[in-house]
């Protein structure tokens, strides 16, 4: 026996990636998983292969969360979203690694993506209590009325995250949906779902109520079909769908008059360009209130 002390090799601790539904981390109801690999086909992890029943459960969770989330003050939503950005910052290294592996980027390029994503989250956090002033307001009308329009969240939104940009793109589609008070069911990039599943872990520890964001991974077409046809989903963002799938889903979505956001062209620089407010307003509805100003008759103005 040699008296050389050998360092005992640590056993690897593999991470079990799970779905994020209703504030919990379930495995897929179907029990299925699929292999996720990097750009060079090296195995990274197994991700859950969600079924239509997982999608259904996610809708139930999102619907349940909608009342409280849309009813929270815009200021409070902003605080919570900012908290998410803080938590993302704390796990920056992990996301940099996951993005680098998923997209085959160098470490510095991946870091730039993650930084941009966190900055974007902060940017949307700031919009929660400002969007109403930009797209709502008083309307001049020909009559003795105050006429006020205010934007209201649409409801439960199914989001097909972009297939290529696994984190910056993901954040760019989730944040605008929930900033305005909607709740979301997100289908992660089919090929690179790991950053999205890790984002679920961040959201769970950021005061974001369970069910506001639900993350599913698996075959986009398989999960998106029941969501597009679901009568209790109010809108769908087709960003992650190819042309054929987008058409199919739009047809299914027409059944209960869902709001549909068609895939938008992405600029050369990926998702780094200034997003504008378009993604927020796509999932807002305008409520207009007419309120009498009082008598403007014989006695003149009453106010």
């Amino acid at each position: 026996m040699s008296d050389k002390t050998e360092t005992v090799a640590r056993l690897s601790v593999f991470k079990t990636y799970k779905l994020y539904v209703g504030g919990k981390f379930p495995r897929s109801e179907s029990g299925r998983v699929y292999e996720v690999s990097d750009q060079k086909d090296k195995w990274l992890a197994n991700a859950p292969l969600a079924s239509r029943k997982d999608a259904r459960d996610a809708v139930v969770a999102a619907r349940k969360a909608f009342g409280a989330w849309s009813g929270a003050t815009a200021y409070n939503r902003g605080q919570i979203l900012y908290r998410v950005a803080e938590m993302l910052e704390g796990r920056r290294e992990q996301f940099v690694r996951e993005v680098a592996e998923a997209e085959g980027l160098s470490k510095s390029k991946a870091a730039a993506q993650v930084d941009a994503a966190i900055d974007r989250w902060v940017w949307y956090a700031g919009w929660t209590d400002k969007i109403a002033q930009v797209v709502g307001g008083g309307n001049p009308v020909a009559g003795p009325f105050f006429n006020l329009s205010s934007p209201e969240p649409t409801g439960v939104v199914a989001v097909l995250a972009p297939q290529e940009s696994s984190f910056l793109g993901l954040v760019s589609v989730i944040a605008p949906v929930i900033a305005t008070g909607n709740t979301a069911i997100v289908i992660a990039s089919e090929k690179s779902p790991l950053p999205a599943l890790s984002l679920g872990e961040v959201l769970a520890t950021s005061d974001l109520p369970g069910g506001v964001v639900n993350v599913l991974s698996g075959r986009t077409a398989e999960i998106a079909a029941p969501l597009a046809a679901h009568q209790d989903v109010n809108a769908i963002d087709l960003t992650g769908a190819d042309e054929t799938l987008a058409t199919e889903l739009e047809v299914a979505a027409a059944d209960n008059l869902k709001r549909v956001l068609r895939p938008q062209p992405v600029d050369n620089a990926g998702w780094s360009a200034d997003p504008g407010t378009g993604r927020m307003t796509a999932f807002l509805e305008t409520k207009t209130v007419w309120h009498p100003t009082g008598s403007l008759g014989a006695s003149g103005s009453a106010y």
Partner: protein
Amino acid sequence: MPTAPTAHALTDVTSSDSSLRRFLHGLPGVDAVGLEARAASLGTRSIKTTAKAYAIDLAISMVDLTTLEGADTPGKVRALGAKAVHPDPTDRTTPATAAVCVYPDMVPAAKEAVAGSTVKVASVATAFPAGRAALDVKLADVRDAVSAGADEIDMVIDRGAFLAGHYLKVHDEITAVKEACGGSARLKVIFETGELSTYDNIRRASWLGMLAGADFIKTSTGKVAVNATPANTLLMLEAVRDFRAQTGVQVGVKPAGGIRTSKDAIKFLVLVNETVGEDWLDNHWFRFGASSLLNDLLMQRQKLATGRYSGPDYVTVD
């Protein structure tokens, strides 16, 4: 329903408090772990496609659509009655529910709302849900509901007397209520299983209720923390099975409270089929006391019909 006479083997059981106690305490003890395991294993059956469609329609036809709130109004009862008759107005192939279940003073309104349909009117009575009132008051409550036209009476037992061991008192009370029902109204006896503490007590209460002439035994009021569970319902199903084997009298079972999803309801139907068999798979012998369950059944029914998931916007808000 022809009421068979209680078989001679059990006639002297109820002759005195001590013989009744001897009989009830002589019932075999319940294996709690085995009971729960059996109920859980029957809950794992996968019921799909046509079997599911059949089960959903059967479950809808077994619902006692219930509203037992202090805030009930005649208008709400009318709306409930309309829903019981045509649960899904967009699809007239949907079966009607078994009954509407209301407080006694709402019976006339309910009767009017379901007139001309197969839907029955059930009324809770006997100082529901606590049952803490003098016998005269309870009987007046029952007569009131029956004279207003209730087809079924849901009474609560005196849990205080039962837990104190005054079994004959509970027995005589049930008999008196049964008499007050006259020949016309069927009597459901609610044990409030959540307050009986042990499975042994649930078994005793079941036998006590059946000996006293209950047409139905019912788990609970829906007003306490623990209501119908698969285990206590399984236990009661076993009791009615054994009772029929001994006396030839068939008694119905009604789990109530806490059954909210189609999946739960189908689990209960599996319990019925596996424990007492097809004889009970009919709304004359098995009921669900529920309010929100019906909406879930309707949404599942719409899903099966259209292939897409439905939502709460497509059923009524009760």
